[in-house]
């Protein structure tokens, strides 16, 4: 083998680097080719191909699983931007299938019904990178320890209620700030309390940030919601039901994309918030009985 052709695939740098390229962008849930094209036209940095958006999974109930590979392949053919897809928590065979389709990122997602109530997928075994949800720093670091190359705060998917996304973003950044202020000899107990590996805890304490890109998800429905998440420190935003459950998806999608770029410019945000038609109707998270809250899935 010549030196020139010795390419290494699936390294941490390649997996985490892919998420770096998505920063400042919006990743949109799409259920068919038409929606995928609308998302791409609106300036999405990637699409998440799935059969039902979280709002419908919530409304219809039942077991939610990986999408039909045929549908994912159709979406891959129809757009030139990256295509992500979801596997159930712990369902490593769904992940193997998604990898064989060549999806660009796998979301091991609490939006689907978990397949394993003890173990998450061992993500180091894959060439394809994974994004995982987290509600706090300990959970994020456990997922990174299992090989996640990107984290998204969970929020509460399919609600259009941004309050949990806020809670989770604040929890993660508060805990990072707390670690940064600690003496080195206090980090051992902090690691125990966070139920996270000491080496990762120490790394976060030193750098003051997660070792991977942090997006927000779960309940983002308006340009202002997306911009607030960016101001709270998110690197980018996932929008699920918020776009295609609204009155004018193409317009809302484009407005959210622009609002993520100009998240700190209220004049642009005001302009982008005008005349978007109806937002998704939404459910208050407080009205969802506790066992039906998706953010509580994952451990």
């Amino acid at each position, binding site marked *: 083998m010549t*030196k*020139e*052709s*010795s*390419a*290494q*695939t*699936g*390294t941490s*740098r*390649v997996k985490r*680097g*892919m998420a*770096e*390229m*998505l*920063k*400042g*962008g919006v990743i949109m849930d799409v259920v068919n080719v038409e929606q995928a094209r609308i998302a*791409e*036209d*609106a*300036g*999405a*940095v*990637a699409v998440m191909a799935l059969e039902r958006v979280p709002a419908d999974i919530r409304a219809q109930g039942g077991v939610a699983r990986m999408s039909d590979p045929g549908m994912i392949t159709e979406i891959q053919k129809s*757009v*030139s*931007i*990256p295509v992500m897809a979801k596997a159930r928590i712990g369902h490593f065979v769904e992940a193997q299938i998604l*990898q064989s389709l*060549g*999806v*660009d*990122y796998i979301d091991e997602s609490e939006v689907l019904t978990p397949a394993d109530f003890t173990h998450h997928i061992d993500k180091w075994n894959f*060439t*394809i*990178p994974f994004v995982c949800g987290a509600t706090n720093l300990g959970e994020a670091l456990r997922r990174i320890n299992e090989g996640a190359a990107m984290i998204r705060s969970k929020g509460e998917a399919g609600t259009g209620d941004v309050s949990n996304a806020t809670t989770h973003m604040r929890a993660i950044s508060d805990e990072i700030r707390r670690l940064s202020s600690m003496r080195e000899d206090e980090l051992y107990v902090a690691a125990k309390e966070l139920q996270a590996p000491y080496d990762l805890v120490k790394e976060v304490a030193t750098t003051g940030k997660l070792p991977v890109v942090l997006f927000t998800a779960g309940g983002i429905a308006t340009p202002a919601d997306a911009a607030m998440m960016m101001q709270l420190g998110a690197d980018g935003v996932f929008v699920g039901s918020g776009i295609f459950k609204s009155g004018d998806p193409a317009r809302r999608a*484009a407005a959210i*994309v*622009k609002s993520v*770029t*100009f998240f700190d410019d209220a004049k642009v945000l005001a302009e982008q918030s005008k005349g978007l038609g109806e937002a998704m109707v939404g459910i208050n998270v407080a009205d969802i009985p506790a066992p039906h809250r998706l953010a509580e899935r994952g451990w």
Partner: protein
Amino acid sequence: MKIGVLALQGDVAEHIASLGDCGVSASGVRSRQEIESVDALVIPGGESTTIAKLAKAFGVFDLIKSRIASGMPTYGSCAGMILIADQILDGGVDQESFGGLGAQVRRNAFGRQVDSFETDLTFAGIGGAPFRAVFIRAPWVESVGAGVEVLASFNGHPVAIRQGHLLATSFHPELTGDNRIHRFFVDQLCKESSKAGI
């Protein structure tokens, strides 16, 4: 010499940090005024279709295009390479570029994320060890016009090229902590143009 990193979308912070390591204090630029105020520009990695759409939506597309055409030193990595190429192959629907660089660039030429890779490259113009290059859904250069210098190739495809004040790489030096290519841009392209009084 003020260097801006186009901050519409992508890994802006990494480029600012790499330039910082070269002793240059760079900043993110989004607005017309910010883009007009810089002497040189870096277009980061990201999603090229998104960056082009945002540039159009916020009315800076033609400004960037004309500044590149009139000699502003510009470096594009990955998406940035696509955006400064005269011609894009396998682009999105009606995808446009700022252009300037006389080359045809094929988008996602190395494949999807499952094919993304890192490797050692020999890069003409920088000394020392081979450069560890990270390719992510990367483009390659399909063909170059007159006056375009190939600085690095991988498996027969040019992956780093220069034409006067323009530099482009298929890969992401900003992800590796090795700032030799950023230094090359600052020393060879930016300083040369400021000497020439452009």
